[in-house]
């Protein structure tokens, strides 16, 4: 009788310890996702702080393209106000497209393209785009890990018990990216640089 009781207590303790460790795993995963998200936010802020400079630089040469400037400014403030992952994702997409149009406009002004300031800003922007895409990838990988943990058995039980919800992925804005890349993407704009023609990537 007492043996059964002891075994029962031990089993209970074991389950408790396991549950605790699963809980910790989930909390750690959630914190990692948050940290990865803050990485995206850092890069988005970085780009947001570049945009006024770029707009000013273009405005100096192309005053009448008011509509394009407004669009970029609007998209930028929309991104800054976005709260959820999906909203941020969508706003980022819109901003990418607006920026792409702005840079297409800039293509028409040779003096603008030649100016050191604009060139520097453009380089910064393309670098930041790349940083955003890598930060997004890191976030999505962490989000995948975390979402998997929430959905698979043993941790599933703890997740349900303590309301660990799945996180959203930060979607790639493929069209927006492509459009921006056309104007100054390192690979596509400078095929001469590589002796090898870029392979068609999937």
């Amino acid at each position: 009788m007492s043996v059964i009781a002891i075994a029962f207590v031990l089993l209970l303790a074991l389950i408790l310890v396991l549950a605790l460790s699963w809980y910790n795993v989930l909390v750690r995963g959630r914190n990692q996702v948050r940290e990865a998200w803050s990485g995206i936010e850092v890069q988005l802020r970085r780009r947001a702080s570049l945009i006024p400079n770029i707009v000013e630089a273009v405005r100096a040469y192309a005053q009448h393209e008011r509509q394009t400037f407004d669009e970029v400014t609007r998209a930028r403030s929309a991104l800054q106000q976005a709260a959820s992952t999906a909203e941020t994702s969508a706003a980022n997409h819109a901003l990418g497209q607006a920026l792409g149009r702005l840079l297409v406009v800039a293509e028409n002004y040779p003096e603008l393209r030649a100016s050191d300031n604009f060139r520097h800003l453009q380089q910064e922007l393309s670098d930041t785009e790349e940083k955003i895409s890598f930060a997004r990838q890191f976030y999505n990988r962490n989000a995948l890990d975390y979402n998997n943990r929430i959905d698979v058995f043993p941790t599933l039980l703890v997740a349900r018990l303590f309301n660990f919800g799945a996180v959203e992925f930060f979607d790639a804005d493929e069209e927006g990216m492509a459009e921006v890349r056309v104007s100054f993407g390192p690979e596509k704009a400078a095929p001469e640089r590589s002796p090898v023609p870029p392979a068609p990537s999937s």
Partner: protein
Amino acid sequence: MAEAPESVLVYTRIAANERKTRWLVAAFVVVLMPVVSAATTLAMPVITAVIIMVAARGLGPEQIFQRLMSIDVEVQAAQPSDGVMQLRDLPASFVWLTGGFLAVALIVVAIGFGAVTVFLVWRYGTRMLLRAVHARPVSEGEEPDLVRLVQNLCIGAGLPTPRVYVVESRAPNAFATGRHPNEACLVVTRGLLTLVNRRELQGVIAHELSHIGNHDTRLTMILAALVGTTSLPWKVALAPVRYAFRTNPVAGACSAFFFICVGWLLLNAFWSSLIYLASDELSQEVPPFMWWWIAHTLVAPVYALWVAPIASLVIRQAVSREREFLADADAVRLTRDPEGLALALAKIGAAGGERLRVGEGSVHLCIVDPHGGGSLLHRVFPSHPPVVDRLQLLAKMGSGLPEAALEAAIEAGRQLRQTSAAESESAALEKPSEQQVLAPTEGEDSTEDNTNGAHQPARSSIPLYEHPDGWSKVLAQLDENAALTPVGKVGNFVRVVTSDNVTGYVSASACLSALRQGSS
């Protein structure tokens, strides 16, 4: 290679690699464990002799013999009547004596191995390695493209940005080192920077970052130190023979034969004398507990001198190859561009031959084998999988490799090999300036540029860019022999004025046969 019959999931590759590595490391530990015991067998005669010499200071040889015989007498007195001696029948003095010698030998060997391992870890450590290859830290101002690329990939990999170093070597290679991701260093050679384009460089850097992220830097450093330690008995034993070989091969061969035979005989004589002491007389049956010793004596030298060093090396190389595949797969997960890494590997592989003098501890962290084979053993069990295998796997991860691109990459690498072979002769004359620091001084051409001049292989013309970057508008395609006047230097680009009075930028690596002519 263009047609990939089945595609490989990156995640599957990674999981399989990690499982395999775990088994290999376990096998490594199993091989290592008896080494100390085997080496003790080897070292015990020497240590016993030293102890006897110290203990018998002031005693004549006869007295020593007397003492030893008294032990023998004691052992004989303990001989049981039925004739077969058991371990428990041995007199306490004998057990204490041999046991004490054994313990001392064990401690000495263990401490020796530990000290050697610690020394080798330090020797293969980051600082020594960076010093050995003359790596120079670069800032974002000096190499903006490279440093930014590293920073961006680190964001994707979730790693702290490592310090970036450049080695002014024409061998296209890259490696990572450092005990922990927080103190990691990433080293690329000038040859690599000039050979590959940005997309390919991204693949290479991602590969190295994966080594850092997977803690391969630490794993291989420790494995290298342990392999160095296991091969220590072999190296110590063979040092005189190797010396003889170097002076005279025939005498070396004779001395090796002599050394092996006499060494073996002496070792066995020592252990059989112990056996003789423990048994009554030679004619009598050997005590059963001594069989273990006899087997040990016969096997231990073979194990400690040959089996363990070779087995540990083979396993270490197998671990290394697995980690290379793993780093390739991880790099693809990071860049999502298997073709970029594949083309870089094709180029670097075709350009092979040039050596980079990195230490034993970091060979496994390079993108390709920096020693280009090395000794026979290293060629049979290479540290890196063949480039072709890696390319095939990478092709399966993506949508396959276009044949034309691959051929162009291989051709580019081959050209680098030919030109650098031709130039190493001429560069030998102006060696001192090879380490020249890239400074934004005017009129700088010299060896730095000369050596890199060859690295724009599959290209007959040089693009003249509007701005000092690789993707601004191309103002003109310059002929390789066009006369150019260098005006200044911005990062990797040289500001030049052409004969048509057009000002633009050319890649410092691209053009410099032209520059040399212009400035001379």
